[in-house]
C-alpha cells in the first residue's frame, strides 16, 4: 500500500486546509446531531465547494443527506443543466422545490418588482420547502465576507418556527462547540463556509479542480446593455423601446435568477484569470445582485424574514 505524503512537511496547515478542516468538522457535527439535515444547493460556486467538502467529510461513504434546490424558474438554463448533471454524477440526491402557486398566479420580477418576487419565489419557497421535508438543519453556502449582516451571523444560525433570524438574540458560539438544540418546528441554518472569502473559494476551486457552471467564464453573450448593467437575454424579458440585445464579452460573478444577476465585462476564460480579475478589481460580488440593494439594510431584512 502506498501512502500519500502528509499535507505538508512542517506541522502547520495552509489557510485553505485549515478552513477545509473547520468546514468538514461543522458538516459532520450537523449530521451527527440533527435528525433531518438538508443542504441548500444554489448551483453556484459556493455550493460546489460546499458539496466537495461534504464528499470529503464522509469519504469513503456517500453524502448522508439530500440537497435541496429552490427553483424560482427564472434561473439560467446553463444552471439547470449543471444542476441536473453534477450532483447526480457524484451520487448525491437532489430535491427541487418551487412555489408553484405563486408561479401559477403569475409571479415574475417585471410585474411584481424584484423585492416581492424574491419574497415569494425564494424566501416563501425556501420556508415551504424546508417545512415540507421536515428538515431541522439546513446547510447554506453563505460567507461572512459577502455582506455586513452576514459578518455577524453565527455558523449555527437559529431560526424560529417561522424561519426568522433574530440578530439581537443570537446564541453565543464559542470554540467549535455548536449548540444544536431545537424544539419542534424550530431549525438551524448552518454556514460551513462562514470564514471563507470569495478569493478562498475561487482558489480552492482552482486547487481542487471543482466543476462550476460555465457562466462564470467569460464568453460572448447576448446581453441587454442598460447603463452600466448587463442583463442576460433569457425567458423573453420585456425590452425597452428601441432596445436591441448586443453581443458582449462578459461573465457572471455570482449566480442568481437571470433577470436579477448582472454580468460584468470580462475576458477571464480560465480560473487564474478569474482570480487575477478578482484581486485587481476588488468589487464586491454582490454589488450586481439587485436584491441586496432594493432597500436599506436589505439583506438583514430578508434574513429576518427567513431568507438564508
Amino acid at each position: 500500500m502506498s501512502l500519500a505524503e502528509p499535507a505538508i512537511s512542517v506541522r502547520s496547515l495552509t489557510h485553505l486546509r485549515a478552513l477545509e478542516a473547520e468546514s468538514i468538522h461543522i458538516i459532520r457535527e450537523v449530521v451527527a446531531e440533527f435528525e433531518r439535515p438538508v443542504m441548500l444547493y444554489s448551483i453556484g460556486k459556493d455550493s460546489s465547494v460546499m458539496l466537495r467538502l461534504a464528499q470529503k467529510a464522509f469519504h469513503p461513504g456517500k453524502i448522508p443527506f439530500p440537497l435541496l434546490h429552490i427553483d424560482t424558474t427564472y434561473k439560467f438554463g446553463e444552471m439547470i443543466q449543471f444542476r441536473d448533471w453534477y450532483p447526480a454524477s457524484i451520487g448525491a440526491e437532489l430535491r427541487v422545490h418551487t412555489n408553484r402557486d405563486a408561479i401559477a398566479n403569475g409571479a415574475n420580477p417585471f410585474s411584481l418588482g424584484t423585492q416581492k418576487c424574491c419574497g415569494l419565489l425564494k424566501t416563501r419557497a425556501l420556508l415551504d420547502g424546508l417545512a415540507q421535508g421536515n428538515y431541522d438543519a439546513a446547510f447554506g453556502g453563505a460567507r461572512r465576507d459577502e455582506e455586513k449582516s452576514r459578518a455577524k451571523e453565527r455558523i449555527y444560525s437559529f431560526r424560529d418556527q417561522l424561519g426568522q433570524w433574530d440578530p439581537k438574540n443570537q446564541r453565543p458560539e464559542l470554540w467549535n462547540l455548536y449548540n444544536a438544540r431545537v424544539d419542534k418546528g424550530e431549525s438551524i441554518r448552518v454556514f460551513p463556509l462562514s470564514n471563507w472569502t470569495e478569493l478562498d473559494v475561487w482558489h480552492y476551486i482552482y486547487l481542487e479542480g471543482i466543476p462550476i457552471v460555465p457562466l462564470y467564464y467569460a464568453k460572448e453573450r447576448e446581453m441587454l446593455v442598460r447603463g452600466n448593467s448587463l442583463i442576460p437575454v433569457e425567458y423573453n424579458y420585456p425590452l425597452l423601446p428601441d432596445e436591441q440585445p448586443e453581443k458582449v464579452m462578459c461573465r457572471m460573478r455570482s449566480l442568481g435568477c437571470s433577470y436579477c444577476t448582472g454580468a460584468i465585462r470580462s475576458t477571464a476564460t480560465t480560473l487564474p484569470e478569474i482570480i487575477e480579475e478578482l484581486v485587481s478589481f476588488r468589487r464586491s460580488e454582490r454589488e450586481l445582485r439587485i436584491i441586496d440593494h432594493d432597500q436599506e439594510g436589505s439583506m438583514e431584512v430578508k434574513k429576518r424574514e427567513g431568507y438564508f
Partner: protein
Amino acid sequence: MGTPSTSIEQFLREHEHSEMLRFSTAGSVDDGKSTLIGRLLYDTKGVYEDQLAAVRNSRINRSTGEFDLSLLTDGLRAEREQGITIDVAYRYFHTPNRKFIIADTPGHEQYTRNMATGASTASLAVILVDARKGVLPQSRRHCTISWLLGIPHLVVAVNKMDLVDWSEEVFANILADFEAFVAPLGITGITYIPMSALEGDNVVERSRRMPWYTGPALLEHLEQAPIGKQYNYEDLRFPVQYVVRPDLDFRGYAGQIASGVVRQGQRLTVLPSGRSSRVKTVTAWEGDLSEAFAPMSVTVTLEDEIDISRGDMLVDPARMPHVSRRFAAHLVWMNDAALEPDRPYLLKHTTQTVGATVTAVRYRLDVNTLSEEPADGLALNEIGVVEVETARPLFFDNYRKNRTTGAFVLIDPASNATVAAGMITERKEDNRAADLSAALRSEEFTSGRLTPAERYARWRHQPATVWLTARRELAYLLERRLFDRGCLVHAVVDEFESHVLPELARFSNQAGMIAICSSGSDDAADRERARTLVGGERFVALEGYELSPDDSKAAFQIIQALENRGILPADRFQVGEGI
C-alpha cells in the same frame, strides 16, 4: 489584499501556502477600534471598491481625513439605530503571507460574553488603550478575558499617539501600568505598539514620528507572530465525531484532531472503554496518510473491531487525559437567567453532551481588579470559579494545556440557550482512581483487555447464547457437534434453578463462548431477561413448533441458524455437498 507581484501564478503559489491567524479586538465607540480595523482593511486592500465608494459618499465623517475609515466596519441596522455595537463581527483580509480573521467585539461590560466568544478561537488579541486616557477598565477586562480564554499572544495597541504629541513618556507610563496589572496573572511577553490608527502610524507602515520606538508596526507583528504555538502536538486527543460505515468492509471514526499527531500503526486507547488497538489507516479524501495532526479533519480505521461511537475519544496510552466526573472550571455566565447551583444543565464537551450540575461557586472574579469575591451564583457577564459534576465521565485536560479538551459550554435544557462557557482548571482531588474504574467498568473491561476480535481470531466464531426449553439431551448433543467443529462451547443445563441461567450465559458470552442453555419448561421470563442481558444479536431461541422433536435434526436446525446469523462460519463441506 496582496496584488500579484509578477504574475498570477506566483500570487496563487504564495496565497496557497499562506497560513491563517485569527485575532480578536475589543472596544467601544470613540476608542479608535473601528478606525484601526478600517485602516488595516483599507491599507491591505481588504475593502471592495464599491464598499469604499459607499463610505466615500457617506455624509458622515467623524474623522479629519478624506473619509471616515471607521464606517468600513459599519454593522447591523439594529446597531446603527441604537448607535452601538451589539455583537461579534468577523472580518477578513490578507497579506501575501497570511490570511487574517478578525473577531471584532464590543468593549462594554454588558458585552463580556461577546468578548469571550471572539476570544475563544483567537490566537492573538489586540488590546486597545487610548493614549490620553491610559489603562481603563475596558482594556483590563479585555486583557483578563483574553488570558482566561487562553490567547497565547497579547498586543497592547496604544492608540491616538497623535493626540499626546507622540510622547515616549506617555507610552512608557502606560506600559508600566499595564505590566503592573498583568503581573498577578503571570502574563509575560506582551508586545506594546504606540500608534495612530487615524494617521496610519505604526499600523501598516512604521511611523517616522516616533523615532524612539524601534519595534514593528502592528501588521508586521501580525505577520510574524508564531502560529504553531496554538496547537499542542504532544498529546493525541481524537474525539470521535461520527462513524463512517459505507459497507461492511469499512468502519472509520471521523473527527477533527483536537491535539497531537495520529500515525498509521500507532497504538491507541479508546475512552471510555479502555480498550486498545492499532491505527490501520488515517483516511482522507486524497488517500491514506502516514500521519495527520491537529487541527486536521480525518477518518481513522483501527486493526481491531471495537465498539466505538460518537463521544468516545482515541488517545495515546502513554499520555492519557484526565477521566473524571468532577472538576473545577472558570465559568463565563452568558444568560439573563443567573446560574443556579444544583440545577440540571447540559454540558457539551468535544463531541459529547452530558447532564451536569454546578455543585458549588468557589468565588466570583472581579475582572477589573482581579479580586476574588464570595458568591452563590453568577449573573449575566459574570466570571467565576465553580465546581462541576457530570452524569458521565469526561476525558479532559487543563484548558491551559489544551484549548479544545479543556473547554465546554453549558446549555439550558428548558430554553435550549447556551448559558455559559467553561475552561477547566483542575480535576478535583482524590477521585481519579474511583472515576477511572467507573469509567472502565464496562462489559468489555470485566472480561479482560482481550478484544472480541482477538477471540474471534482464535475460535473462528462469535459468542452466542442458544436458549432451549426443556431439551436437556439436545443441549448435550449440540454441545458435542459444535465442539467437534472446533467451537468453544458449554452446555449450561439447569432445569431447577433456571433464573441464574441468563447471568451464566452472559459470562460465557463475554469469554467468547457459545452457551447452550436448557431451562425448565416455565421459562418465558428468564428467556426474555437472557435476551436483554446478552443482546438480541447474540441470542438464538427457536420456538418449539419450529424445532424438530428429533434431537439430531434439531441440532442441525440450530447450527444452520447460527450460520445464517453469521455467528458460525458456514461449514464448507456441508455447503459444498451438491458440487
